[in-house]
């Protein structure tokens, strides 16, 4: 039922996404949308010489799950590298799509999205911000000094 999905933690995370802002300058950026529901996410990062995220900016127009996920990404991203984001994204996908428990990462708790597992049409909403982050960093990897 929806109350499991739309619980307080998710709602608070989504509300926090109202405060995200774009960066004035960024090293890499990516926009993604989900055609099914129209969620749109823009993720942009500034990165250090060794590829760590030093600043993050966002723009989001989407459902509550998408905005909550973006908020979680925002809390996690600073200091992380492409590999970290890729691992978390894979974890999230494993949990949502295959129902496997998430691996423990002290810096991020993905369990609030467990109730979304039963709703396949919503998986893309949750994954969208992380996929956009991967795209941004991947593009950066492909085109820059790393």
């Amino acid at each position, binding site marked *: *039922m*929806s*109350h499991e*999905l*739309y619980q307080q933690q998710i*709602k608070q995370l989504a509300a926090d996404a109202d405060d995200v802002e774009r960066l004035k300058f960024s090293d890499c950026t990516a926009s993604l949308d989900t*055609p*099914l*529901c*129209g*969620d*749109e996410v823009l993720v942009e990062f500034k990165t250090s010489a060794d590829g760590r995220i030093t600043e993050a900016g966002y723009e989001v*127009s*989407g*459902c*509550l*799950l*998408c905005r909550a996920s973006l908020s979680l990404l925002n809390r996690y991203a600073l200091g992380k590298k492409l590999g970290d984001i890729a691992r978390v994204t894979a974890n999230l996908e494993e949990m949502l799509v295959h129902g496997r428990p998430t691996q423990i990462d002290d810096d991020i708790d993905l369990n609030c999205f467990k109730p979304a597992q039963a*709703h396949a049409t*919503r998986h893309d*909403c949750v994954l969208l911000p992380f996929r956009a982050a991967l795209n941004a960093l991947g593009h950066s990897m492909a085109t820059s000094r790393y």
Partner: protein
Amino acid sequence: MGFDFSSLRSLFPALCEHGGGQRLLYLDNAATSQIPKFVLDAVVRHELESRANIQRSSHSLAEKATQAYNNARQSVARFLNVASSDEIVFTAGTTSAINLLAHGFGNNLKTGDEILLSEAEHHSNLIPWQLLGQRVGVKLRFIPVDEEGRLDLQKLPELLTTRCKLVAITHCSNVTGAITDVKPIVAAARAVGARVLLDGAQMVPHGPVDVQTLDIDFYVFSGHKCFAPNGIGVLYGRREELSQLQVFQGGGGMVDHVSLCESRYATAPTRMLEAGTPAIAQAVGLGAAMDWMQTLDWPAIRAYETRLLNRLLNGMQKFPEMKLLGSRDTHDRAPVVGFVHETIHPHDICHILNDYGLALRGGHHCAQPLLNALGVKAATRASLAFYNSEDEVDALLAALEEVIDILT
């Protein structure tokens, strides 16, 4: 004749109380309608008693199957008031019908020719023409919509020139329910020698269509939106128009003679344009649905649907934070209501409505250009059919109050 709501609704098993389980309040009819049991029975009976390929073998079963398929074509022809069933081509649906036209009609065009669409089109009546533009160099032009999503026909004179070869527009919007004023469009198209295609996917569920009165060249629709099975659709075309279409797909059944190096295609459009074994049982189901729909009292049903629409539109007034898409005027409007809450995303609304047994769709409804024109990115849509009740409309309104309570 009248309209007996209860007996009509009882024909649809999915809408009946099953005891114990949650009642289905199905308001997603613009996506797919429910199907009456007798249509399913017709499909099953055909598969059990007449299953064979058509127009190939001479055994009795094949003759029965061929007859059933041809009968279905005649049922569709009667529904559309078409002079001859030779003008009815079965397709897999609206999308495949338009793709067929985009090849069959479009490949006769040349660079510099124009096709006039509108901002209100479903992606199915947009992307095939975009692809044609990329293949052939045909230019697409668009009738804009006003703030209510209705086509702004004042722009027609400047948009329609002798370069325009086809006007391809929706008969009824799947987002706003706006029914297109076809007459002036046909007149303007005729004046420049352009053909007219109507996308009837959202119109046919609301009653028989008279293509002769509409005076159009092509009409397309899907079975699954008008109480018939999936996987079957219709392309109507005037005989002289169909006969000029280029072959879209090659295969068995569409030829008179084949050698290793070349083939002579069948001259009858219904054969030339239906390559391979068609969806025979689905066509039989569509025929059953069309025959039944013609027995209904459509003036009474349309009045009932308008009453439902009014009830929903009036009920929505209690949500000042909700933007309604489309006209408040129910004249020339099908019972389709798109709406947008100022802070709650349609996907979240639909998700929670599902807890109440309410089936609605949220998203861009395969009409992103229309939503852009209306200034929104996504919308929730309640789309009603004649088997919906006032109780269901009230249940939606009550549930919306709770959704807003939960998410704000």
